[in-house]
């Protein structure tokens, strides 16, 4: 059974691109359209890594990361921020919230796969 990665992005096409990239490398994926939707879908199943956008409706990515870090089952799940935001101040916010990496869109599939393989839980 493959490892599971959650993709959180309000852009359906972006979720598709990320999902195709990850599935092609043998990962299983769960998709959520914003932070709140993602939390609703985190029901105790094993999630080996999370890839999240920053600017999203309902719950933004930084708030989502902070919430995940408070969840007993997922507080050690590594999170990669995948966003168009490239400002250092935003990156620092993400780092302070608990993210492990910051990838600025548009991404190249191999770069994301490299980051995933480097951070994903065993």
């Amino acid at each position, binding site marked *: 059974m493959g490892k599971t990665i959650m993709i959180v992005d309000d*852009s359906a096409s972006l979720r598709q691109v990320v999902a195709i*990239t990850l599935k092609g490398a043998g990962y299983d994926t769960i998709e959520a359209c914003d932070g709140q939707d993602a939390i609703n879908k985190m029901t105790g199943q094993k999630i080996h890594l999370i890839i999240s956008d920053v600017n999203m409706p309902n719950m933004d990515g930084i708030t989502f990361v902070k919430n995940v870090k408070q969840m007993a089952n997922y507080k050690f799940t590594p999170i990669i921020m995948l966003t168009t935001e*490239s400002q250092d101040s935003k990156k620092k916010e993400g780092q302070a919230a608990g993210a492990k*990496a910051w990838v600025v869109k*548009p991404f190249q599939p191999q770069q994301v796969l490299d980051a995933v393989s480097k951070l994903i839980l065993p």
Partner: protein
Amino acid sequence: MAGAATIIAIGNASLAALLMATVAALMVVVTAALTSRRCLYEQQQAVQQQSARIAEQQHPLHDYVASVEALGDKLVPVWVSQIESSRSQMESEITNLSNRFSGIVERLGVSINTVSSTSDSSGKSPLMEMLGESERDLTAVTRSLRDISIEKEKMLEGITALLKFTDRLKQMAADVAGIADQTNMLALNAAIEAARAGEAGRGFAVVADEVRKLSMMSKETGSRITETVETIGKAIFNTVDAAQQAAVKEQTTLTGAEESIQNVLDGFRQSSTDLVESSDRLRHENEAIQIDVTESLVSLQFQDRVSQMLSHVRDNIQSLHDEIAKSSATSDTLPAPLNTQTLLANLESSYAMEHEWNVHTGKGNKESAAKTPAAEITFF
């Protein structure tokens, strides 16, 4: 009296002078007043004219303010709606497109796996393996048939060897017949000798007769043995002849079968090789198409970037609408100037991408705007 008259006269004269002076003064005053009134009137006229001119000048100003308010109330919402409509349409269509691309990628993956199950570049495809197994099995069958044929030939050689024994049997039967003749001759001589002996040889004559009968029977038996051996010999000959003819036919059939099997296997091998080559080409093409479609999918990320840029502009135009509404004139106050700096600052604070900053500040030229920036990864 005179004095009084004088006084009166003087008084009259003074009064008259006073009156004259007064009148003169009054005339001056009246004249001045009249002049002043005329001036005032003229000034009033001038003020009124000035007011009219100002009013005339204010009319376009009011029109301008009204037009700006109308821009905020009517045009700006249309701009916002159009931008949002374009953004949402693009998002919807790009999502559909990416869904289709994802479907194509997945179906190509299934197709590649299916093609790979019939062929692979190492040549160990199930089809070629099946061909090899068929060839081995069929070769084993023909080898078994060939072995059976060889065994039959050996058996025929054995049967043919039996024909030599029939000749010997016939000779033995002839020998038996010869012995029977000699015995018969002896029995005949014995009978003659018994007759000469008279009464004493009567018993011997009986024995001699019985021996003669036995010799006759032996001769007949020898003849029957000869006939039977000849019959058996003919049967063996016919059997061997038929078996040899069958063996020749069998050899011909077996050789033909081997050739047919080889032809079928050669044809099957050629078809399989062609199929494997076609499958290889198909798989390579599928893989190339899958890569192209995946890269196209990756390129569709522009939608997310463009959507965010349009959202920022849309929100800023909405802020312009609010700013215009806030600065509108009332019946008592003049319209406040629009706060362009605040609007610009709001727009700047909404930027997420470096490209937006570059465009905003005029640093980004058309070339850099068209170029997709490289991904940037920071590990914490």
